[in-house]
């Protein structure tokens, strides 16, 4: 019972902290296509990267059956209340998705008033008709299971949104064969393209391919400027809030959330690099170069007129003053993973720094950036490759927590919301008991400092003077210092 209350509280914290992030959930779907050769993307596939275990979704050519075809009461559509053993299929996946999963609302979102405005501003919709098919395809790639949908159907009740096959793969090749006998599902996973969403790294990559992007899903600066919320994905936070239609064997273990967080960091970096390579190659018609969403929002988006050094601009070094620092949200997570051995990690960080420098140069060379991104993806994959499968390396919860707290401490002197928010999430995910007692209060203080102000679509962080929920720079530093001391003390206990 206490556990349940704690969980509910966790959920609340997660939900409030990332209110904006969560708003994004309902607009996206998890689906992937690392080896998708048939979409409009013309980026070549790399055999070195084909082993993510989720390369089976050929969303453009493979037939989609639709969520309703899974909903037979004897399959995934029944209540099946009796099935309770961990790891056993619940049998009630479909109704659970339909009633509680925000992904099921995705079609409602894309045909909403606000969304129609965005589509119009982007020139995708004109006079009620789709005027820019590739642009619309790019939207559907995340907002609907079946991307082959025509303009006339853009009404609230037509399509299913992000349904079963968005994450599990189009069902045509395996539909008839995945339920015939106990080994058939496994066979379908290995040979027929049913996605194996069990292992956490590939699972996170499925989510990230929409919630970050992929080579055929580019939610870019144009779209954000037209009104789409910017994406701030975090695997552990999202997973916590998600109404799950499955059970994980280890879901009750104390380090499960940490595992998700860790898998998420790897998958986010990989997805971001995949997207970056695709953008630099301009492999999608909607992509642009230079792509402004590769940079931190508030490096440009701040009010002029502040005395230099005292505005909400991130504090970057003199070399990049006047240029935009790279958005690190998805990219540098692996730099804080205790699981990656030190020499490998510093190689990764070096490569990332090189890439970052290229991106921050005045006229970023797209070809070089594409090549470097690709190289870094392979490097990252090799660092977690076990028998050709991306696998969470062995790691210690204790040292990971220590690193996370250290990171949080370091953000005290920095003006970067991204670093601070990332460190906060890391502590929340890797520290075993931040949700109760004194630590919960401490985390609450930090969280308040990170919240976006009421009318803004971006952080205003930290302010010179406190206003609304934003603490002043001094208040933020003090709160953070106290929080770090409290967290460290708890570590020692």
């Amino acid at each position, binding site marked *: 019972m206490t556990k349940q209350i704690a969980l509910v509280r966790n959920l609340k914290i997660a939900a409030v902290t990332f209110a904006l992030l969560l708003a994004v959930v309902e607009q996206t779907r998890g689906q992937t296509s690392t080896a998708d050769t048939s979409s409009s993307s013309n980026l070549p596939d790399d055999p070195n990267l084909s082993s993510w275990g989720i390369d089976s979704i050929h969303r453009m050519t493979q037939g989609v059956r639709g969520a309703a075809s899974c909903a037979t009461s004897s399959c995934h559509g029944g209540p099946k209340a009796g099935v309770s053993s961990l790891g056993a299929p619940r049998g009630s996946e479909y109704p659970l998705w339909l009633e509680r999963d925000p992904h099921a609302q995705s079609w409602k979102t894309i045909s909403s008033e606000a969304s129609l405005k965005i589509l119009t501003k982007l020139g995708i919709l004109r006079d009620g008709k789709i005027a820019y098919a590739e642009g619309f395809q790019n939207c559907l790639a995340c907002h609907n299971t079946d991307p082959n949908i025509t303009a006339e159907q853009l009404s609230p009740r037509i399509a299913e949104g992000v349904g079963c096959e968005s994450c599990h793969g189009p069902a045509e090749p395996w539909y008839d064969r995945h339920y015939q006998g106990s080994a058939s599902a496994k066979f379908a996973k290995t040979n027929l393209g049913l996605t194996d969403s069990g292992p956490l790294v590939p699972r996170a990559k499925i989510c990230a391919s929409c919630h970050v992007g992929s080579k055929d899903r580019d939610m870019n600066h144009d779209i954000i400027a037209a009104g789409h919320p910017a994406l701030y994905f975090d695997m552990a936070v999202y997973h916590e809030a998600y109404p799950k239609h499955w059970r994980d064997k280890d879901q009750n273990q104390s380090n499960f959330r940490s595992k998700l967080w860790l898998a998420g960091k790897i998958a986010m970096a990989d997805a971001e690099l995949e997207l970056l390579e695709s953008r630099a190659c301009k492999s999608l018609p909607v992509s642009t170069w230079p792509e402004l969403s590769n940079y931190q929002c508030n490096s*440009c988006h701040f009010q002029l007129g502040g005395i230099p050094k005292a505005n909400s601009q991130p504090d970057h070094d003199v070399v990049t003053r*006047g240029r935009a620092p790279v958005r690190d949200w998805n990219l540098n997570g692996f730099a804080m993973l205790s699981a990656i051995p030190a020499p490998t990690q510093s190689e990764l960080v070096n490569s990332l720094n090189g890439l970052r420098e290229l991106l921050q140069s005045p006229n970023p060379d797209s070809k070089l950036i594409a090549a470097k991104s690709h190289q870094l993806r392979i490097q990252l994959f090799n660092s977690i490759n076990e028998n050709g499968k991306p696998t969470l390396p062995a790691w210690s919860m204790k040292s990971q927590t220590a690193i996370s707290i250290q990171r949080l401490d370091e953000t005290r002197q920095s003006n970067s919301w991204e670093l601070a928010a990332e460190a906060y999430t890391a502590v929340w995910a890797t520290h075993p008991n931040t949700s109760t007692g004194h630590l919960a209060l401490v985390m609450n203080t930090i969280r308040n400092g990170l919240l976006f102000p009421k009318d803004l679509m971006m952080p205003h962080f930290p302010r010179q003077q406190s206003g609304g929920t934003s603490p002043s720079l001094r208040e933020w530093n003090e709160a953070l210092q106290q929080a770090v001391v409290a967290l460290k003390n708890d570590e020692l206990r």
Partner: protein
Amino acid sequence: MTGQKFVLPMLAFTLGILSSTLIAAAEPTHSAYHATVPTGVNSIGVKECAACHSAPNPIYDALGVTKFVRLVEATEWRERDKHAYAYQLVRQDLSPDELEKDERKSNQLSIDITSKLNWKPEERKNKFEQKCLTCHVGMNASERSPKVDPKFNIQFGVQCESCHGPGSEYTKLEHHQQVSWRAKSPEEKAELGMWNLSSPSTTAKICLSCHLGNIDEDRFVSHDMYAAGHPVLPPFDLQVFLDAMPPHWRPLQEKPLFENQAEYNRVHFDIPGNSDEIQSAIRDSYDKTRRSMLGGLAANDLGIELIHQGTAKPSTWGDYSNYNCMGCHQELKKNSTQIRPHSRTPGRPFPANWLTLDYPNIHVSSRDTHASLTREMLASFDSVPFGDAQRLNQLSVKHLQSLADRFQDRRKMEKQVMSKKDVVQWLDFLNTSRQESLTDFWVAKQTAWMVCVAIDELVERGDLKIDSVSPSQRELRELLRLDLQLLQKQSVLSVQKSILETAQHFDAARCKELIDLLVNTAVSRR
């Protein structure tokens, strides 16, 4: 911009057209302004000029030249003109004590800016000269003063020759000290190095090479410099800027007639009638509005020229200073996407808007060409983030070609006077052609300046009652902070801050209303 860059496209253009008027018209924009440095001519420094131009002198009175010049120019300039302080404001060799005492904090700002620009110690001096002193002294612009005489002292900031042209030739006894010099044509004077400041276009070109920028002359405030703290350049209006300077000149209308007056008028104007009629037409010309209009058109040309210079090497194009500041520098409010005009692709930086000015009375086909080229340029800015450099370069060449053609028109305009009817027509034209771009603070400010100059002149001439316009004008002045910030004992940064805050929160709809109201008042009193 040298003439050479244009030889080929110009040749192709003229051959293609084969029309005698257009062949005459097709010349490089820059040289058309007659503000280039002839070979072998140098700057000699303000001290040489000050020898005569400091105080009235009975000898010169007797010779008759003081009728035209006041001979207090150097004194006026030294004591009151902001340009004389241009170097002092940025010099970096003050003692800590002097830095502390300086209330404007401009020298400290200068030190901060250059240190943030992160120049290597060994290149500091050169870079300071090349990036800062080109404007703050007006020195070393390759085109304007290739060889600087040792007597030319940077301490004196932007001095006589920075605007009047290098003086090593025309200061010789047989030239500008003679009464006969006055009747010489601007072209003859330019050959000896003296630029024609009775021409608003030439004057504006000279001002704008610093006040807007000129990459070829090493005068360009880059985004790195802004980000390091350089104050933002205001938009430009020739008449407003001249009004803000302590006049060391005598307006044409106040200059006495002289024996060669008829010849002078013939060289400088193209007005029908006998010499008395011509003389009175010149006297009655609405010259402030004329200067404002021709200055605005020059700013328009030079804005395109700046794009041409910036895109010459496509790989280096895209300095953020080419774009509207507020396009990016705004906090992302929940409703901020509703403010942007719908015609543009969301998320693409848009150019600092100098491209939209045209003028009444121009031939329809020329106006259409201008409008369609402007549209194409804007479309190219919109096609990819920061604009397609190659395409912009092609378009700017085309644009400059058509402007060279139009420059003939401009010259004709310069040789004509402006009547009350012309002023009202200009106001009406401004109001209708700029409606859409008034959401941009800088365009709004430039437009409001032009409107106010014309309205003020109508009031001055008794064509409008001051009561009918002054409340709206006062409001407009405040809304856009139209008054220039002159030498104030106030920190540069705090002045900047309040200007930028005004820019960020200005009420575009109200600005539109006020301009509309003012123009309609003028039009209905016609």
